[in-house]
């Protein structure tokens, strides 16, 4: 498998009046060609900041890259100038957002918004670009595209707008698509349509997708690999089957336990996670999940655990999985 994107020890912070917020604190992962990787976590865990920093979309200042590299096709994005980024953004890497109403320009016809990128990046003539726009709207199943390209975003329903966003993102045939909660604002029946659409487009064009979501059902449906993020750090990574069947980090287990299953009896209690995520103004020295973890040990408070590999593709960062801790875990009589 060829690596398309490789993030190495990335740390991103925000300078604020009250001090530095360490939103992303040294994460490493990669995305292969043609695969879908899920970035899962609760609000404030740093998943959207990670996505935006791959696109260099964060306002700088207050944001800044503290350390690390983002290698896209072997080149480091962190070092790119704004001018160089404009050649990558919307061309080789595209992004779709949660709320299509705020990410489309309300004063511009849909057609013009799609055509804009084509004329800029691919140097097509206006007529060629328009034909391509109609072809794209067809691909994302927007009915009557010839008529629709002359309409404004408010004339579309939520699901249709998200289709337009996907057409807009895919029109330049990007190598990487970053989808930040693409179906969270949609109803389940529309969500099912959009997820199917993303899958079929990926098959046709071979795009890699980073899917950011908190919906574990969507992850189970769409993704090849899953990365679990918490408090600005990676807690666990594995194939979708490894994560759902054999989660090794207590946080992953709790997260999976806190969603009701359709086969669950009503008398079962839902496993909630007490407390709230850590404050990233003063990030904890040790494991960020320490405060909420009921299996926490003394060492967890002081030292962040290293990656512990369970298979070639599956690792977790938890002291419980440290080879020396095996005795402790058994001894505590779970």
């Amino acid at each position, binding site marked *: 498998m060829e690596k398309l994107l490789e993030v190495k020890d990335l740390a991103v912070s925000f300078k604020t009046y009250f001090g530095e917020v360490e939103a992303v604190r040294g994460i490493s992962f990669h995305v292969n060609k043609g695969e879908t990787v899920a970035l899962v976590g*609760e*609000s404030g865990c740093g998943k959207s900041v990670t996505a935006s920093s791959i696109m260099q979309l964060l306002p700088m200042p207050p944001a800044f890259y503290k350390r690390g590299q983002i290698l896209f096709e072997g080149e480091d994005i962190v070092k790119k100038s704004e001018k160089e980024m404009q050649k990558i953004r919307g061309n080789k890497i595209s992004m779709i957002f949660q709320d299509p109403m705020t990410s489309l320009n309300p004063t511009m016809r849909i057609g013009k918004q799609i055509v804009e990128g084509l004329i800029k990046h691919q140097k097509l003539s206006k007529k060629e670009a328009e034909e391509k726009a109609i072809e794209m709207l067809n691909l994302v199943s927007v009915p009557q595209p010839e008529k629709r390209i002359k309409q404004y975003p408010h004339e579309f*329903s*939520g*699901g*249709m707008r998200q289709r337009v966003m996907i057409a807009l993102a895919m029109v330049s045939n990007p190598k990487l698509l970053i989808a930040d909660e693409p179906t969270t604002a949609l*109803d*389940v*029946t*529309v*969500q*099912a*349509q959009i*997820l*199917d659409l993303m899958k079929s487009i990926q098959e046709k064009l071979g795009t890699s997708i980073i899917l950011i979501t*908190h*919906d*574990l*059902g*969507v*992850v*189970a*449906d769409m993704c090849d690999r899953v990365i679990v993020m918490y408090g600005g750090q990676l807690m666990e990574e594995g194939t*979708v*089957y490894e994560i*759902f069947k054999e989660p090794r980090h207590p946080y992953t287990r*709790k*997260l*999976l336990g*806190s*969603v*009701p*299953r*359709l086969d*669950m009896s*009503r008398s079962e*209690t*839902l*496993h*909630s*996670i*007490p407390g*709230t995520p850590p404050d990233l103004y003063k990030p904890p020295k040790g494991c960020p999940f320490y405060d909420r973890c009921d299996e926490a040990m003394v060492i967890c408070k002081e030292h962040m655990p290293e990656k512990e590999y369970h298979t070639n593709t599956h690792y977790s960062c938890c002291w419980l999985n440290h080879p020396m801790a095996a005795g402790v875990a058994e001894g505590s009589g779970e």
Partner: protein
Amino acid sequence: MVEPLISVRNVKKYFDVGGGKTLKAVDGISFDIYPGETFGLVGESGCGKSTAGRTIIRLYEPSGGEVIFNGKNIYELSHHDMQAIRRDFQMIFQDPYASLDPRMTVEDIIAEPLDLHKAYKNADERHDRVIELLKLVGLNEEHASRFPHEFSGGQRQRIGIARALALRPKFIVCDEPISALDVSIQAQVVNLLKELQEEMGLTYLFIAHDLSMVRYISDRVGVMYLGHMMELAKSEELYENPIHPYTQALLSAIPIPNPEVQRSRHRIILEGDVPSPIDPEDNCRFVERCPYATKICKEKEPDFVEVLEGHYVACHRAKEILDKKLTSTK
């Protein structure tokens, strides 16, 4: 036979949208809610579930129908009598940021219903009751003097719940109480609502679009589509044996957090979007997207009939679908 706490009969809520057009948000729904139960109301955005919740407790003036509570039709009560009966009805809102006044302390927020109904003798009694309520929802005494912005989403929702419980209500409308919260916090709030129900014998109308959560919390569930009730049954029955084609599609669209199960499922993908609720025709509201639609569905509105014990469906072809299901399982 247990008497229902609330009987909703043919309740309607129309909005005049100008130009002689009417938006029929809720168009004649009927059901009973029994004491101590949780009645779940599900449907996609714009189906009228929130409007239904608000119309039932008369936060919106109804356009028709009746709601019987304690033997009285609350839609016929005077403003003054309604005020008195409001003590028994409360509401928990979706957005824990918008539903708490940012300039009031938590103590004043929670005590506001007590102030309005003059439910205490002196300041000490008021304060004690607030502390008692805070403890009930898992917060503590120190929180009373703080302001809403000092709390996280989950904690704010707890404050909203404490306020709703202040007057010891019988019936609470929970309008998407957890959809703005993170997964791990959702479970905290749902577990709290369940505990409170057991302790205080509360009755809930639980409105949500998260179908797995509704199944988990509700005794009975009603499915709405464009202002109509499409199907109503006990929650296990509805999820295991959905009859209405819309319910079937809706349930099949929920992604299940288990990759093996999810990837081998058959999904019913509905074509198109929910049509506009402005001046709808008198036919089955689902007809345009329904894979089972026939001629009669376009001409006549189906009745809401009991096809199995306690299982109601509004579909012309319900009998056929049910028979087919029964023969295929044999």
